[in-house]
C-alpha cells in the first residue's frame, strides 16, 4: 500500500468495509492528503454520522467520533466550541446530511461555524441496501421507490449557499486532485465549509441510478456528465451563462467552487467579539 495510506490508516482494521470500487475510499485518501498538505494532523479531529461515508474517518489514525444518524453537525458544533482552535472535519452523506440531519445542517450553515463538511453524495442510502435519498434523481427506481421516484432531488450546495455557508464547492470522485485541494481550502477557511462529493456506489446505486455496476464507468460518467462552474456563468446574458444553460439542458451537473467568502463573520468570532464589546473578561479555563 502507498505511504500516505499507511501513515493515516489503521492498517489493522483493514480491509475497509467499503465495497470494491466504492467512492468512499477515494474521498478518504483525498481528505488524508489534504490534512497532510496542511501539516495540521495533530490539530484535526473528525466527526461522522451513520452511513457508508460516515465510516471514512473511522479508519484514520486521528481522534474520531462516529455519532448518530444525522447528528454529526450537532456533535461537531459542541466539539468545536469546546476546542475552538482545532480543525473539525465532518464526514456525512446525502441522507445523513439532507434528510434526518436537515435541521442541524440548516443551523450550522446559518451560524457559519468554522467546521468543514464533506458530504459524500452517492444518490442513495447505500448502507441499508439501496433506498432512495433526498438526492435520488427523479424517476429513479430504488428499493423504496419501486414505481420511480416522484421527488425532485435536493441540491445540497444550493441549500448551503442560501442558508449562509461561506465556502461551498462540489467535486466528484473522478476529480481527486480538485477534491483534495477543496478539502484543504475548506479546512483553512474560517467559516462553514461545505464540500459535496459526487461518489459512486456501484453495488446499491450502480444498476438503478447509473445504469452500470462498474465503478470505472461511473467515474467516467462523473467526468463527462459534469461541467465546470465559472463565476461568469452567474451573469445573466453572458456567453458563459448561455454555456451553462446548454450544459444544464444536457442534464449535466455543475461542479467547482461556488462560493468562497472570507468576509462573512464566523460564529465563534462573532460570540467572542460580542463578549469583548461588553467588556466581559474571560478567565483562562483549564480542562
Amino acid at each position, binding site marked *: 500500500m502507498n505511504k500516505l495510506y499507511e501513515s493515516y490508516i489503521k492498517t489493522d482494521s483493514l480491509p475497509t468495509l467499503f465495497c470494491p470500487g466504492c467512492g468512499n475510499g477515494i474521498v478518504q485518501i483525498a481528505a488524508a492528503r489534504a490534512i497532510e498538505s496542511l501539516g495540521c494532523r495533530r490539530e484535526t479531529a473528525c466527526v461522522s454520522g*451513520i452511513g457508508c461515508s460516515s465510516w471514512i474517518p473511522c479508519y484514520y489514525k486521528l481522534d474520531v467520533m462516529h455519532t448518530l444518524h444525522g447528528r454529526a453537525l450537532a456533535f461537531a458544533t459542541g466539539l*468545536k466550541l469546546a476546542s475552538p482552535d482545532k480543525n473539525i472535519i465532518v464526514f456525512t452523506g446525502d441522507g445523513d446530511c439532507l434528510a434526518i440531519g436537515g435541521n442541524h445542517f440548516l443551523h450550522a450553515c446559518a451560524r457559519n461555524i468554522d467546521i468543514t463538511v464533506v458530504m459524500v453524495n452517492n444518490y442513495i442510502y447505500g448502507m441499508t441496501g439501496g433506498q432512495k435519498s433526498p438526492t435520488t434523481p427523479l424517476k429513479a427506481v430504488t428499493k423504496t421507490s419501486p414505481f420511480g421516484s416522484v421527488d425532485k432531488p435536493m441540491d445540497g450546495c444550493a441549500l448551503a449557499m442560501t442558508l449562509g455557508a461561506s465556502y461551498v464547492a462540489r467535486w466528484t470522485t473522478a476529480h481527486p486532485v480538485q477534491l483534495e485541494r477543496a478539502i484543504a481550502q475548506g479546512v483553512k477557511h474560517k467559516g462553514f465549509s461545505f464540500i459535496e462529493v459526487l461518489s459512486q456506489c456501484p453495488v446499491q446505486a450502480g444498476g438503478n441510478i447509473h445504469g452500470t455496476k462498474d465503478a470505472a464507468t461511473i467515474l467516467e460518467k462523473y467526468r463527462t456528465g459534469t461541467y465546470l462552474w465559472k463565476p461568469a456563468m452567474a451573469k445573466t446574458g453572458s456567453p458563459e451563462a448561455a454555456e451553462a444553460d446548454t450544459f444544464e439542458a444536457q442534464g449535466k451537473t455543475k461542479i467547482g467552487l461556488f462560493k468562497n467568502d472570507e468576509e462573512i463573520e464566523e460564529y465563534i468570532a462573532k460570540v467572542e467579539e460580542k463578549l469583548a464589546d461588553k467588556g466581559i473578561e474571560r478567565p483562562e479555563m483549564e480542562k
Partner: protein
Amino acid sequence: MEASNPKGSGQNPLEIENIKIVLQGNEACAKGALQAGCRFFAGYPITPSTEIIEMLSEEMPLAGGAFIQMEDEIASACAIIGARWGGKKAMTATSGPGYTLMQEAIGYAAVTETPIVIVNIQRGGPSTGQPTMSSQHDIYQARYGSHGDYQIIVLAPSSVQEMYDFTVRAFELSERFRTPVILLGDEIIGHMREKINVSSGPLEIAPANIISASSPQRDFFMGANSMVEGQLHDEYGRRIGHLAQKSGDFLQLLDRKILDNMDEITSIDTFCMEDADVAIVAYGSVARPSMNAIKLARGIKDDRISTKFKIVRDVITKGVPKTLRTDYSHLKVGLIKINTVWPFPEEQLVRLAANVDIVIVPEMNVGKYCREVERALCGKRVVSMPKSGGDIHTPREILDRIVEETGLKQEVGDLE
C-alpha cells in the same frame, strides 16, 4: 451577608464569596454546575427548565465557558457529548418533551462512556401535557428511556440546596463512572426559592480512579487517537457487534461498572427510622410533604406549620375545612428519602426497611417507583399513593393515609 438573586448582575459567578444565598431551584442547579467545573452548556428553552438556560446564557461566558442555544433538544444533547470529548464538562437542561427527544443521545453517551449531565425538570405529561405543572411522570423514562441495555445514574433533588448539591454530585459521578447522569428535578423544586449554602469557589472534581468498560478515556487532541463509537466496541473503538460473546461481555462490563459500585453511588437520607413501624419511601419534591407528615405525626415542632401540637389546621380546599384530632402517640413513622433513585438501591432499601411493617410510597404519577419498592420488599405491605394532576401531596393527605393504613383510631373534635 446574604446576597439576593444575582441573576443579571454581570458578576463572575466564581467570585461569589457570600456563602448563603437565596436562589430558585433552577438557578441553584445552574450555579452548582458552574461550581462543579461545567464549562459548556447547550440547550433549548422549555418550561419549566428555562431559567437554567437563561442563567447560564450569561454566567457560562462569564465563567470562561461556552454557551449555545441549539436548534432543538436532540442537537443540545449531541453538542454536550461532543463538547465533553473536546475536554469541557458539559450539561444540558430540559423537561419531558425535550427529554424524550434526547434519548438516542443518552444511549450514545452510555455506550461511549461519555460523562455528561442532563437535567430534567419534570412537568405533567404525556406529550405537551401540563407545561407549568409539576409531576414525577418520567421516573421510569429516566432509567429506561433509550433503547438497548445500559445503566444510568439518576439523582432526585427535593430542595433548592439539593438542586445545588446534587448537580455537583452529578458531575462527580459522571466523571468517576464515565456515564451520563440525570438530575431528575420537577417544576416545584425548580421554581421554589430557598436560602442555601454555596461553595465560595470552584470545586475540585478530581475523579479517583476512572472506571470504564472499554471506551477511550483520553479526550481529543491529547495524541491518543481516540475512537468514539456508538456500536458495541472494544477498547480501541473497533466494533464487536457481530461477535455475540464479546458483545455480551461488553454489555456486562457496562452494567457491572455501575452495579458493582452501588455503595459509592447510592445516597439515601432517613428521618426518624430508628424506631419506625411505618416507612414512607419518597423521592424528589414529594419527600417534603412526607417529611412534614412525619413531623406532624411525631409532634416535632416546626415553625412553618401550626404550633398547635396534634391539631392540624388544614389549607381550606373547596371551602371545606377539615379538622381531625388524632392521637398519634403510638404512631412511629419514618422517612426513607431516596436521593439516587437509579440504579434502584435494592439492598440498602431492604436493610433500612427491615423493621417496618408498612411502606407507603407517595408519588406524583400513577404509581411507578412503588413497583420497584414492592419488588424489593416482597412480603411487606407496600402501599402506593399516586397523585396525578399536578398538585403535590399535602402533609395532611400523607398523614391521613398513614392513619388509614395503620388503622389508628380517630376522634373528630372541635378546633381548639
